[in-house]
């Protein structure tokens, strides 16, 4: 499978990465190179094989359903590029 320019632009949009036409052209070549490389997997017969979900056969631990952390609003926003009174500020979303 290979991707065309329109697909590259659609994937960039899904990835939330702005690309110029020139960059999309370049990426198309690179992505097709990588997709061509991974194409080798089609040679492998995987019928009856379960997909891997965990490399370790250990079941996930559960912890008590209790609050063990929190009350750190100032810490949470400390690294925000734009914050006010412990809120993240973003461009207007609703008109």
């Amino acid at each position, binding site marked *: *499978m290979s*991707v065309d320019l329109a*697909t*590259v632009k659609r*994937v*960039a*949009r*899904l*990835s*939330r*990465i*702005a*690309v110029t036409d020139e960059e999309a052209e370049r*990426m198309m070549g*690179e*992505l097709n*190179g*990588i*997709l061509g*490389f*991974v*194409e*080798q*997997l089609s*040679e*492998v017969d*995987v019928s009856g*094989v*379960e*997909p*891997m*979900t*965990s*490399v*370790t056969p*250990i079941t*996930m*631990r559960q*912890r008590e359903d209790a609050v063990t952390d929190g009350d*750190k609003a100032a*810490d*949470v*926003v*400390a*690294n*925000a*590029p*734009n914050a006010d009174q412990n809120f*993240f500020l*973003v*461009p*207007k*979303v609703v008109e």
Partner: protein
Amino acid sequence: MTDLTSLTIAAARDKLKAREISAVELTESYLNAIDAANGALNAYVAVTPDKAIAMAKTSDARLAEGKGGALEGIPLGVKDLFATEGVHTQACSHILDGFQPKYESTVTGKLWGEGAVMLGKLNMDEFAMGSSNESSYYGPVVNPWKAEGSDEKLVPGGSSGGSAAAVAAHLCAGATATDTGGSIRQPAAFTGTVGIKPTYGRCSRFGIVAYASSLDQAGPIARDVRDAAILLKSMAGVDKKDTTSVDLPVPDYEAALGQSLKGMRIGIPKEYRLDGMPEEIEKLWAQGAEWLKDAGAEVVEISLPHTKYALPAYYIVAPAEASSNLARYDGVRYGLRAEGRDIADMYEKTRASGFGKEVQRRIMIGTYVLSAGYYDAYYLKAQKVRTLIKRDFENAFRAGVDAILAPITPSSAFAIGDKELAADPVKMYLQDVFTITLNLAGLPGISVPAGLDNKGLPLGLQVIGKPFEEETLFKTAHVIEQAAGTFSPKVWW
């Protein structure tokens, strides 16, 4: 008096305990060495001298009372991927511009708990994506090794290139690193250092900036096998904050050194013998097998038939997980923000200017293979192939093999700005052909220097083991180290 930076962790530990040297003296020696070398090597992206001296003073006070942890007063470097409270943590990306976490990663917290001293943060490929350290926002690290008679600057490997270079150049006693596809073992091989990627789940991933969560694992890079064993002991262990960390006792890895290999069976995977592999690597591999035989092990050929499919499977699984993990960098909660006309435009511009080319490429591939209509063909297929790769190893172990001996890299260190590699991402990916299978199977592997090539550059061998049998790796690698010796670059910086 000899230069204190020439001491291994084991040697410095003994001298500190005996109060022959102080932690402050030792730390100052390293800070001076960093000052003198970092302009040339670019191994550190942030040095924390005040913090280092304060920690060293605390260590001296503890040592004076006859107390102190396993690493009391030992100065370490930390890969920029580990969250360090109040200190530069950017995964060497522009998108985490100015990020200083309010929390500490579990692994570094454990090291400080044992008394280690932090010297600063080490350069790496952006978000650990790369095999040459050239994708760092802070520029490439220069390998302390140079080919004989050449002044060409070489890469230290990647992604833990800063860690490996700093250890090789004696700019820290040891370093933390991480390995998603070979990022501990390949740079260790390129710099003549020892690196171990432990079993998935051996070390907590809490506070390590995520790349591909099902593959990422932390481990040390050190000057010799003993130092690596000392560091891993303090880094490993279960953690409530990482449910994939495993609740098994952490053995005294150092105690495994010097144990006999008698009765051990070592597998040589025939699929790792690649067409066009340099003869020197083939010879070194055969030499390694001889050393293990001399130490009493039996060496047998084994087959891992799905080896060639590991790289393509990785380049689906890792980008898929990365595209999901890196969705959090949106210009809202931390790091860089580029203004835009609306919120979507802000996201897109922030991510376009904050992520480097290789990171963008992997996010794009990941987004594509997970997009509607392609999930089964790519991601699900790759996860099935992953099951087969793991099964290959399980079959070998079930047939009585205790450990596997393999090369680490298809070549010694290459030049910074290598045109052929820069022009074709897939060529660069092939650097990891011998290392990536272990990440897919979750197995531990150690990289140990085994000799120099005809250019005078270090080459390593890899010992691969069963899950949670890192002790086997340490004792086997120690035999190779005893036979091969250790290797240090000539100081030119």
